[in-house]
């Protein structure tokens, strides 16, 4: 197995040099991955499957396989791109930049105000960036997917250790989690940070603060470590320390991410109701912290959204239908990506159901795992979360779905069929991994930003003075990562349909009219390669509309291209007296 692991790593290293991100199609990164990359994953999968069923006690080697998988899947874009991927990660860098410059937050700020109202993650990262002596947090953010996946994997294994003593189920569950969590919330973001804290809170409750169950099967499944630590937890001081740590984590969640704070309250409540958590006051504490934060520190944001919140709480199937992308708007490649992603969700759910049924037939149903896999469905009561609720429900459920799915692939110990189980696991794992590559990498064509685009964005945010206007084709570019609060933003793709039609019909006239407001200190239009890719693949604007706008502005004497390179153009009004030079 170590030889197979070394071979897989070698294949992966070789494959890195053959990846050209600029050649990606609408299928995403998978369209430019060489055969050696897939070979590396295949060797790793087979090696892991054999190891987990035949030698489940070789923890170090199994952990090395999982870390290698994280490196293959999440370090590859970081190494190959050389720039930070995903537009929202750039925005989060901008919040850290704001805190670094001001030392505080402005909860009523005009842009990205949600992050100023839940700033826990950004405050910590701001301090880390300053202590590390970095000018900005871009370098740290670039490696965030790897960092967060390692952290989250540790948390997932921690939770699984509290759920079972079967090492095969623990490691297999960890593997399945990594290859089924395709929703991409592992980038530089508060939700990735809060998700890690959420899993830790659940792990602490299951491991150190459980209500005793007296069923034989549940007792048998309790891990060895639990018993050893429960020896300690029998002392009041130890349990009190664990409660204190959980409360501290709940406070950090409440200050970092609103939805996770709701989710952890829901999960703890469900655990208490199902008599799994011994500390009945913990959900009350979580609720109190969430309410206090929302209605004291984040009151500006809550007040501004309270009016529309009730309208967003709909029946689950209505929310589901509205959250799913209209496939008719997508390009052919993106249709395939969306379909595979949905199929992967269904496959994980079916595997988890099979695992749960198998546990139930053997009278060993893991009640906490089932409860925690279903608890996120209650988030339907919290609204549609701007169309992202389905992703978040899946994110919170997938560790426990993976745990249950792992039990569907385990061999019966009595029959000694570990080789057959290893082959089945390798086959199922390969299929799931292939689906993961399509689903997770499927939007990389949009998420990848070239250095030329970064240069254009840096020009705008460096030269834009306070009160200037920035008109974007779409949000999909390295946006708002520096001095972001100085500018006001207008995104053509998010304009009302009537306004969009006017811009597309008469771009020069309409845009010049917007930009010529004498109250503004300046105005820019930025059009980049990644904006055009988003338009063509997601259909947020009519096909080719940004190209037409760019050509019209370039041809107009009223506009001047103040910054131009291969992948981006920045326009300003030609007669603007305070135009940056």
């Amino acid at each position, binding site marked *: 197995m170590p030889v197979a692991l070394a071979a897989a790593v070698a294949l992966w290293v070789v494959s890195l040099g053959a990846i050209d991100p600029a050649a990606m199609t609408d299928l995403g990164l998978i369209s430019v991955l060489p055969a050696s990359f897939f070979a590396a994953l295949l060797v790793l999968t087979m090696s892991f499957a054999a190891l987990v069923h035949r030698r489940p006690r070789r923890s170090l080697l199994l952990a090395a396989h999982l870390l290698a998988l994280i490196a293959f899947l999440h370090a590859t874009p970081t190494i190959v791109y050389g720039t930070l991927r995903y537009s929202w990660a750039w925005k989060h860098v901008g919040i850290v930049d704001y805190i670094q410059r001001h030392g505080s937050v402005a909860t009523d700020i005009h842009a990205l105000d949600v992050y100023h109202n839940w700033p826990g993650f950004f405050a910590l990262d701001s301090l880390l960036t300053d202590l590390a002596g970095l000018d900005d947090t871009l370098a740290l953010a670039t490696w965030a997917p790897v960092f967060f996946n390692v952290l989250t994997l540790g948390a997932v294994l921690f939770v699984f250790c509290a759920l079972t003593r079967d090492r095969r189920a623990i490691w297999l569950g960890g593997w399945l989690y990594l290859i089924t969590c395709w929703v991409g919330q592992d980038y530089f973001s508060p939700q990735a940070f809060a998700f890690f804290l959420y899993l830790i809170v659940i792990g602490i409750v299951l491991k150190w603060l459980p209500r005793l169950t007296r069923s034989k099967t549940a007792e*048998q499944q309790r891990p060895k470590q639990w018993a050893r630590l429960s*020896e300690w937890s029998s002392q009041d001081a130890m349990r*009190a320390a664990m409660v204190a740590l959980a409360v501290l984590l709940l406070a950090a969640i409440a200050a970092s991410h609103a939805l996770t704070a709701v989710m952890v309250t829901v999960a703890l409540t469900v655990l208490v109701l199902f008599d799994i958590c011994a*500390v009945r*006051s913990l959900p009350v504490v979580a609720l109190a912290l969430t309410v206090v934060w929302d209605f004291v520190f984040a009151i500006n944001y809550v007040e501004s959204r309270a009016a529309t919140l009730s309208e967003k709480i709909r029946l689950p199937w209505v929310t589901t239908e509205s959250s799913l992308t209209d496939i008719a708007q997508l390009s052919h490649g993106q249709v395939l990506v969306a379909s595979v992603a949905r199929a992967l969700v269904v496959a994980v759910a079916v595997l988890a159901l099979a695992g749960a049924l198998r546990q139930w037939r053997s009278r060993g149903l893991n009640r906490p795992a089932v409860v925690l896999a279903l608890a996120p469905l209650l988030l339907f009561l919290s609204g549609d979360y701007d169309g992202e609720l389905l992703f978040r429900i899946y994110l919170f459920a997938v560790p426990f779905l993976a745990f249950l799915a792992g039990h569907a692939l385990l061999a019966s110990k009595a029959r000694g069929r570990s080789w057959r189980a290893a082959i089945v696991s390798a086959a199922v794992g390969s299929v799931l991994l292939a689906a993961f590559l399509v689903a997770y990498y499927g939007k990389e064509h949009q998420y990848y930003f070239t250095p030329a685009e970064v240069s254009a964005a840096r020009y705008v945010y460096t030269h834009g003075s306070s009160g200037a206007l920035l008109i974007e084709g779409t949000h999909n570019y390295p946006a708002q990562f520096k001095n972001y609060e100085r500018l006001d933003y207008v995104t053509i793709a998010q304009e009302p349909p009537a306004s969009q039609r006017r811009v597309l019909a008469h771009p020069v006239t309409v845009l010049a009219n917007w930009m010529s407001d004498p109250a503004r200190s300046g105005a820019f239009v930025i059009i980049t390669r990644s904006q055009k890719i988003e338009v063509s693949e997601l259909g947020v604007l009519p096909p080719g509309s940004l190209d037409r706008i760019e050509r019209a502005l370039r041809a107009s004497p009223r506009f001047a291209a103040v910054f131009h390179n291969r992948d981006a153009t920045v326009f300003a009004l030609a007669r603007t007296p305070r135009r940056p030079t």
Partner: protein
Amino acid sequence: MTSRRQRWPLVIVLSGALLTTLMATDVQSPVRIVLALWFLLVCTGMAFVPLLSIERPLTELGLGVIASIAVDSVVTTAILLVGDLSPATGLLALEALCLLGCTAQIAAAPMLAVLKARLTPPKRHPSGLVVAAPRSDGSVAHATALSVRPASAGPRERRFAVGRRMAFGGVLAVSAAFAMTPDLDISSPRHDEYQGVRSRAQATGQPLDVERYLSQRAEDTPNAQRYDRGGRADRTSAASGGGAGARARHTARTPRPRGAIAPGDGKWHEKGLRPTHDAAAAEQQVPLPQRGGPDRPSTPEPSLSTPGPSPATPRPAPADKPGDRDGDGVPNSQDNCPNKPGTNNGCPIKTP
């Protein structure tokens, strides 16, 4: 032991000092990045987590990382809300917290050792007062010592005597406060389960047969589950006295973990404990009382990792006649073998 106790405080103080120096001199270096990550992800938590005296280093380190992230996040958010988050304020606040934790580690460790020993209740036994001292692997070392008292002759103990007493009282007060909170159940799960067994026994009107119960639990547990990878025996056998074989396995396979308190190993002094007579002779397994005897052990709590008998599990029938320990129908006074059932004057018939 002393060096181990001072290891993390030393590392934390040095890390903080080095990071402060690098920040003050504005050195731009990858070393500074690694040091900042190390300080924020490990040091702040490890200033406090060693106070819990967790024996497994990986668990301790993992909890340290978790505590670090939680503490860092809460502290930086608090400073941010005040409106003055800067590298200096953030680092100073965290370093102050670290110093607090490190001081507590150095000052309170001897007290915690005493507290651990005192938290394990002494047990009355026919041979005298039995003192139970928790080992680090979770088992309990029983010593038929006449008394165990904290060592007070050493200079270090004298130095920390006042602080130790104050901290001891503080921890007890906090523990009592938590214990008195009605909805915060921090009682021992093992104790809960033991109470359940006792209540079932009372409901069925049968005597509480702890030894048989624990032995049965040990037998019900598959061997593969009773031993972990390192060959460490399950405490079920050792702590409950689950037969000589189980004790032998425990003795043979269980290496004494670091930091374990056990008489005879020379660590009692370091933990602030000192037996008043020969410690080597004192360390012995306490013989469990006879079934139905008056002196049941007060805390032979069943392990949580093994299944307990369901209420429907048939329990052994009590002796047919009073005064007949082995239940063979021959009263003890006339039984040549009162502990072995048999029909040959109360003894089993030997077969060639």
